[in-house]
């Protein structure tokens, strides 16, 4: 199994809603990532978990809250989002997250619209 699975594929939420994005991989990878991608732009790194600990937070607003319950799962909890947060949210994984030469495996993403 070489897949990273993200659910849901699409999400529409209001600015007062609370929702969660889910990501799962069964490749034994110990690093998992959240990226945000606006239309026609490259992905921007948000968070990195390495060995289930948060290792990188790219100064992301607190309305985004990541969680890594175990080595296979990564969640992104959303609360009080703004319309400008509408984007494609990509999850990725890699072997350890400690080397700059690692291949990233990406999920298909969750297309989020905030109304």
């Amino acid at each position, binding site marked *: 199994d070489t897949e990273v699975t993200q659910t849901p594929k699409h999400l529409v939420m209001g600015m007062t809603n609370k929702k969660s994005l889910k990501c799962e991989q069964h490749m034994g990878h110990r690093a998992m990532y959240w990226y945000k991608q606006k239309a026609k732009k490259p992905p921007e790194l948000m968070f990195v978990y390495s060995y289930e600990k948060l290792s990188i937070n790219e100064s992301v607003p607190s309305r985004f809250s990541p969680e890594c319950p175990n080595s296979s799962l990564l969640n992104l909890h959303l609360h009080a989002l703004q319309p400008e947060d509408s984007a494609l949210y990509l999850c990725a994984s890699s072997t350890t997250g400690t080397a700059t030469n690692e291949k990233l495996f*990406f999920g*298909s993403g969750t297309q989020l619209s905030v109304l």
Partner: protein
Amino acid sequence: AQSVTQLDSQVPVFEEAPVELRCNYSSSVSVYLFWYVQYPNQGLQLLLKYLSGSTLVESINGFEAEFNKSQTSFHLRKPSVHISDTAEYFCAVGAMFSGGYNKLIFGAGTRLAVHP
């Protein structure tokens, strides 16, 4: 500091024609370079990577890229493209930051549009 510049935002080409997508990087340390491809409504997939050794790297679907240290380039080429190659292509460099953490620095992307 590491950075990546993709010189063309869009490249239109006819089917079976050759194509080159340009990528230049800047890095003061050892360089690991990648090309990722993103098909519509999908995540990114690794196309090929340069870590060390031979400067010419190839992918299984006919793409190749050449690492040129003197020109700080990692251009992607294919001698004959197919309609199915239509996608967004991202060049990226692996970067190490102070504090010991690393991440991929992506270029802005090049939209390859293959026309019949």
